[in-house]
């Protein structure tokens, strides 16, 4: 994995891009990390604020056990080491949306250590991406500067909400890999139920670290662990969609190469992404970087976990996407691609399994990924809002399998189910869509068509491909209900083609 990958061409030679992500994932918890105030989204300004969140004198933090459990679950889901002893630190800085004047975070001793996840790329390749650590911390409030010309407003609803910061190793080497990793993280936390992954509401956002180096230098970094082989990195803050992560990497890599090739230097700085232009710009330089004066928070005891408690969480983990993907390939004979698409979302995977169980897995995957997902996409619906339930779709597939209807008719039935709902069997019966396999009726239709079209009959012997035209005519004559296999067989006999 250390061979030069995804080289970018510059004017003076090839470059490699190196990416690391710090992803903030909001813990799915009703209450905040230390205050017990509600953590739900969408309340009016400053409605979800306790005296602790607003940093009143003498107020003290108390750790939310549920949030700790979610961090451990997530760590286990990332195949990472759970640190049975961890500690909270104060990160000190002044900002209007940080009422305490410090953020409670974990600096030296995070709750979760190193791990690794598998990430699927679009071409089906699977690459490992290292996890450096996961730690728990408080979110800050929100400053709003556009409500008045001379005023700033502060909403503390988010102040104190529990975040998991998941830090990757600098293992990603292209915008596609960064996007795939971010997407995979989202899949994992959603599987685990530890974060809802809702990027529009800010539940998940990434700080994107990008640097470029000359082709071959990354390999040297990997061999030696010496970061000086890598270029100076920039950190672009708060990127809140998978697409934007991709844009940031592409823009930053290109920008840095241009700067370096013009004999410039990259500043180690914090940057902001402009959604409208797709560009990044300087937010603060290294010289302006805060000295956060981290030190252990004396209001909180070290967090000591009972190994049995951790094991209990481990044994309660759901099947994770990688395991599920592998099982779908092995048990249902799916392609890697279909298996990945289905395993990427727990709801979709569950739906598929309900349809596929006891049926032809590939046929089920086809119907689910092509017809159903296509229809849901068009209507902008999530899988759990699907108008067609898994049992009904299963039944439809059964009707195809036992020859009651053709695949063609099944699509019509599917369209009716989508529009009006209902049981596929009843729809087929009510609308008289049952497939005709009665050879007499089919033969009669074929005879009529052959009699009416002597020219085509003559032609088909030289151009066997025109058989399709006859099939179409027969289907038309029978209202699409004729069994296509039977039609083909009789047509070939009557037209005398092998």
């Amino acid at each position, binding site marked *: 994995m250390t061979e030069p990958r995804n080289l970018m061409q510059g004017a003076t030679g090839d470059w490699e891009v190196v990416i690391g992500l710090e992803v903030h994932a909001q813990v799915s918890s009703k209450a905040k990390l230390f205050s017990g105030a509600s953590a739900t989204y969408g309340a009016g300004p400053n409605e979800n604020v306790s*005296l602790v969140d*607003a*940093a*009143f*004198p*003498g*107020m*003290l*933090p*108390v*750790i939310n056990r549920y949030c700790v459990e979610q961090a451990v679950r997530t760590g286990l889901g990332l195949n990472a080491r759970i640190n049975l002893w961890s500690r909270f630190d*104060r990160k*000190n800085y*002044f900002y*209007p949306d940080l*009422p*305490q*004047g*410090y953020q409670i975070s974990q600096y030296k001793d995070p709750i979760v250590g190193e791990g690794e996840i598998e990430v699927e790329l679009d071409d089906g390749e699977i690459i490992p991406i290292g996890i450096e650590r996961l730690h728990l911390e408080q979110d800050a409030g929100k400053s709003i500067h556009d409500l008045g010309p001379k005023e*700033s407003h*502060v909403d503390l609803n988010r102040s104190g909400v529990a975040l998991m910061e998941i830090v990757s190793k600098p293992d990603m080497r292209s915008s596609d890999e960064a996007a795939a990793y971010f997407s995979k993280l989202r899949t994992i936390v959603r599987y685990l139920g530890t974060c809802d992954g809702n990027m529009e509401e800010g539940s998940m956002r990434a700080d994107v670290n990008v640097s470029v180096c000359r082709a071959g230098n990354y390999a040297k970094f990997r061999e030696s662990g010496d970061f000086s082989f890598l270029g100076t990195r920039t950190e672009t803050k708060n990127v809140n969609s998978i697409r934007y992560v991709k844009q940031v990497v592409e823009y930053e890599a290109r920008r840095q190469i241009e700067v370096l090739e013009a004999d410039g230097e990259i500043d180690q700085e914090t940057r902001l992404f402009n959604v409208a232009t797709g560009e990044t710009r300087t937010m603060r330089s290294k010289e302006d970087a805060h*000295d956060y*004066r*981290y*030190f252990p928070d*004396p*209001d*909180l*005891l070290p967090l000591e976990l009972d190994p049995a408690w951790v094991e209990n969480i481990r044994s309660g983990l759901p099947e994770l996407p990688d395991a599920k993907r592998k099982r779908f390939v092995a048990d249902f004979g799916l392609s890697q691609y279909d298996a990945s698409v289905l395993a990427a979302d727990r709801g979709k995977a569950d739906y598929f399994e309900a349809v596929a169980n006891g049926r032809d897995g590939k046929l089920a995957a086809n119907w689910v990924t092509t017809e159903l997902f296509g229809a849901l996409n068009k209507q902008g619906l999530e899988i759990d809002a699907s108008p067609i339930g898994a049992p009904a779709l299963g039944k439809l597939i059964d009707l195809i399998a036992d020859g009651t209807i053709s695949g063609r008719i099944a699509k019509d039935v599917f369209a009716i189910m989508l529009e009006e709902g209902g049981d596929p069997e009843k729809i087929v019966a009510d609308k008289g869509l049952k497939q005709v396999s009665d050879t007499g009726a089919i033969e009669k239709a074929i005879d009529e068509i052959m009699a009416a079209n002597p020219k085509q009959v003559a032609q088909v012997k030289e151009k066997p491909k025109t058989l399709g035209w006859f099939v179409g005519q027969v289907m038309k004559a029978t209202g699409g209900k004729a069994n296509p296999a039977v039609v083909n067989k009789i047509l070939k006999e009557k037209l005398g083609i092998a």
Partner: protein
Amino acid sequence: MTAIENFTLAALLDALKTKKISALEATDAYLERVDRSGALNAFVTPTAEHAREMAKASDARIATGNAGPLEGAPLGIKDLFCTEKVSSTAGSRILQGFQPPYESTVTANLWRDGAVMLGKLNMDEFAMGSSNETSFFGAVVNPWRRNGDDAPLTPGGSSGGSAAAMAARLCAATTGTDTGGSIRQPASVTGTVGLKPTYGRCSRWGIVAFASSLDQAGPITQDVRDAAIMLRSMAGHDPKDSTSIDTPVPDYEAVLGQSVKGLRIGIPKEYRLDGMPEEIEKLWSKGADWLRDAGCEIVDISLPMTKYALPVYYIVAPAEASSNLARYDGVKYGHRADEFSDIVSMYQNSRAEGFGEEVKRRVLIGTYVLSAGYYDAYYLRAQKVRKKIFDEFNDAFNSVDLILTPSTPSAAFGLGEKTADPVQMYLNDVFTVTGNLAGLPGGSVPAGLDGQGLPLGLQLLARPFDEETLLKGMFALEQSAGFTTRPTDWWAV
């Protein structure tokens, strides 16, 4: 009827229980003394109306036989405790006008047990000081004076208002807090009893934080029995304070008078300072003799890390304070500057105006020792030494049950005498900071007078959560010392 100033808390509780005096009578009698005590400046916020309402409620409960353990006892509360809808300033301009919408756990415990709040007591700003001279609301004056000398003396600090109010009998008992000696040192120089419990024994919730890993609430009282009574109500586990310990609160009063025979008392040689007044040395020996006479075994011990305690304290405490005080920005409560041009200058001006010199000094020191490049040399090293101090005490307590030391290196000093030299001021806590750094319970008992007629105290330190042995020892010292001298009411107008 006995004059109110001649009741101990214990005696007053008895009189209230037997209806020899009503809570309202007691409260009014104290309020009258408070009213006349302006010269001491011990109270920053008397709450007379509030006190009388609480006293009436106490009398109603006494009448119906529902009296709590502190029913009707009028108390003074250090202004570091947040008290609901009552000004709580921590002695600072930056909290001027702040009326918390909540009650600290410790004071809530006192009210639960029936106590009455007479008002809030003056203190060094944010509990940073040893003379009560850093208060935004002015210095407190010690009711004690040198023989034949009217020069005003400090009552020590930071719980100077509590100690002065106790010495002048302005209330039945008071609360204080102790981060480096702020209960024991003022108690020592005012002839009162000060008890700092084990770290974690009393909840810190609702107490304005100075240095979170050191702060601990405790009582300043007339005698050891009163301290035992107060502690029982103040102490207890609080789920809102993660550092409070879930261990039962014993009946501390029950151990008083129990024999101290066989207790091993350590005398640490490192507490014998160069230049310490001879009479303090003598008193210390006398204290050891008293305990020996009571059946204790006196053991010479060595605590060589002692000399690092003060430097360690003046790194750890300011570091925590610099962070704890970041929340005072003039935005949410308290003082906000009138003049500013943007958010940053609003912070700067509010903090510049709101904090006094000593607080600023400690915020600067704390910020410095936590800064990149200095953290390892100062904060981290201080933490390591702190651990060694803790271990050293732990070892010592393998061979002794209590440690006896002087409470302070000098008697009360004059107002303004030490304000020019912060280090001279810091030295006042040289015997007490060790207890905070190691989280140990400690208490100061008045043991005698110096040549100028000023009180001197002796300190006992005990194992964590062994307040019972501590109080037993303090009671034994008190019995032997027979300290009964009281300052005159020269201040009363």
